[in-house]
C-alpha cells in the first residue's frame, strides 16, 4: 500500500446511529443559519485585498516627459515563456533606442512576471490589478499607449514585509 493512501475505517453498520448524527447535523446547520460566518465578499462594494506581489495586467512606466521608459533592448520578448510580447525597436537621431511597436497579448500571457524581472530599466511591470473584462478579443492585445495609460499599482518582486520571500 503506498504511504499516501489514507484508510478511513467506516463505522460498522450496526453501530452507526443515523438519528443522532442527523440531530447533530441539524444543530450545526442551525448554528450557521442564525450566525453565519461570513466568508463571501460582496464584490462590487467590498474589494479583495491583493498581495503586493500580485501579478496582474501589465503597465509601462513613463518618463516625466511622457516617453516610455522602454529602451527596446528585446529582453522581455526573449524571456517571455508564452511568447506574448511583440516588440519592434527603433533609434532616434541621438542614438536612443525606443519601442516603435510594443504589444502584449494578455490572453497569451501567463503572468509569470519574468518580463518585469528581466527589464534593465524597470519599464515593463505586471500590476496589482484583476478587472480586465472586455467585449472583444482584440481589446486584449494591449498596445504601447494602452500600457502607458494603466495607472494601477505595479507588482513588487518580493514582499518587503517578508524578507525571506526574496
Amino acid at each position, binding site marked *: 500500500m503506498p504511504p499516501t493512501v489514507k484508510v478511513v475505517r467506516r463505522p460498522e*453498520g450496526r453501530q452507526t446511529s*443515523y438519528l443522532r448524527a442527523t440531530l447533530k447535523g441539524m444543530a450545526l*446547520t442551525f448554528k450557521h443559519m442564525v450566525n453565519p460566518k*461570513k466568508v463571501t465578499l*460582496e464584490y462590487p462594494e467590498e474589494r479583495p485585498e491583493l498581495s503586493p506581489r500580485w501579478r496582474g495586467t501589465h503597465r509601462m512606466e513613463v518618463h516625466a516627459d511622457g516617453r516610455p521608459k522602454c529602451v527596446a533592448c528585446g529582453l522581455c520578448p526573449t524571456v517571455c515563456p508564452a511568447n506574448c510580447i511583440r516588440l519592434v525597436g527603433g533609434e532616434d537621431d541621438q542614438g536612443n533606442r525606443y519601442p516603435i511597436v510594443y504589444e502584449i497579448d494578455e490572453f497569451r500571457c501567463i503572468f509569470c512576471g519574468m518580463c518585469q524581472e528581466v527589464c534593465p530599466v524597470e519599464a515593463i511591470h505586471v500590476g496589482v490589478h484583476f478587472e480586465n473584462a472586455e467585449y472583444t478579443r482584440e481589446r486584449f492585445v494591449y498596445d504601447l499607449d494602452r500600457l502607458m495609460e494603466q495607472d494601477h499599482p505595479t507588482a513588487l518582486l518580493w514582499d518587503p514585509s517578508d524578507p525571506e520571500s526574496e
Partner: protein
Amino acid sequence: MKDLSTTAFVIAATIKVLVVFGGVMGVVALLTLLERRIAGFIQDRLGPNRVGPWGILQPVADGLKNFMKEENAPATAAQPYFLLGPIISLAPALVTFAVIPFAAPLPTPWGVVDMIVADVPIGILYILALSSLGVYGVVMGGWASNNKYSFLGGLRASAQMVSYEVALGLAVVIVLMLAGNVTITEMVWQQQQLNFWFIFPLSLAFILFVISAFAETNRLPFDMPEAESELVGGFHTEYSGMKYAMYPMGEYSHMVTSSALMATLFFGGWDIPFWTGDDAFFYQGAWIRGFAQDGTPLAANLAWWKTLLTFGAFAVKTGFFILVYIWVRWTVPRFRYDQIMQLGWKVMLPSALAYLMVVAVTVLALDQMNVPYGFTFGLVLTVVSAICTGIFLWGLDRGRTLSGASATARERLRARSQKAGLDASTAPAEN
C-alpha cells in the same frame, strides 16, 4: 352556509378564494427566495441579495426570466402529456389549501364569516385524495420526456409515493381516531376542547406524519425523483421555461399545504395556546366557545382582532414547519433508493400499524372507564405515546434501519476469512 345570506356568502367566498390563492402563491414566490437565502446562511454564504432590499424582488426577476425563456420540448416527447405534467403537478397542491382553516371566524355586519375557503365535512379525505394526485404530474412528465433519466425519476416518484402514502394515511387515521371526525374545523375544535394539541397525545403519529410528508413533497432527504447527482435533473430534465417553473411551484405549494396541515392536525391550527378566548366552533346553528357544566353551549366571543391574532398564530406555526423543511433539506443528504424503500416498508408501515393498535386500545379503554374527553384523557394518551415514541426512536437509533449496504457483505467476508484461518483484520481492504 352558516348564518350568512346567499349574496353575502358568495361575496365572502369569492374574496376568500382570491385572498387564499394569492396568499399561497405569494408565499410560494417568497419561499423560492427564502430557501436560497437560508441555504446561503447555512453554507456561510449570503444567497441572492441583489434584487431589491434583502433580494425581495428576486422571485419577480426569476418569473420574468422564466417567461422570456424558450419553451423547449424533445422532438420525441409525448406532447399532450408533456404539457399536462406540470399542470397536474401544480394544480392539486394549490387546491388542497382550500379546506384548511386559517383563523378564527370573522364577525361582519352581514354575519359571521368562517376563515376557510371550503368547510367541507370530508376535509382530511379531500386532502389525502388530492395531494397524492400531484405525483401523477411527476410520473407523466418523466414518462413523456422520453428520456431515461426523466423516466427513472418518474418511476422513483411513483414507488416512493406508494410506499409513503400508506404511512401517511395511517398517521392521519390515528389522528382521526382521537378526533372522531374528518372535518378539519372540528379537529381544531377538538384540540381546543382537549386542552392538548394532538402533538402531545399523538407524538409518534406526528413523527410518522412528518417523515411521510417529507417523502410526499419530494424534498430532501427524499428527493429521489429529482436526485440531481444521479439522474441529471430527474423528471424535469427536459423541461424549460415556465413549464419547468411550474414543478418547483408545485413543490413549494405542496410544502406550504403540508406545513399548514402539520400545524392544523398536531399543533391546534389557528388556536392560541393557554387562552380559551379564541375558541370558536359552529355547533347546531350557533357559534359556541364551549359547554357549561350542565352541557348547555356557551356563545363564542368573536372579534376582528381575535381573527387577526389567530391568523398570526397559524402563520407562525406554518412558517415554522416550512422553515424546518428548508433546514432539513440543507442538512441531511439524500437516502439511497433501497434505504428509502426499507424505511418505508420495514419501519414506517409496521410502526404506524402497531401505534394505531396502541392508540385504539387506549382510547377504547379510556372510553370504557368513562374518562371524560378532557385533560386526564389527554394526559394518559400522552404518557402512552411518549413510551411508543421512545421505543420507535430507540429502534431507529440502533442503526437497524439505515445500515450501510456493505455491512452484511462485510460480515460475510469476515466469516469466510475466519473459516480460512485468517484474522479478520487481515481481510482484504474494506475501502
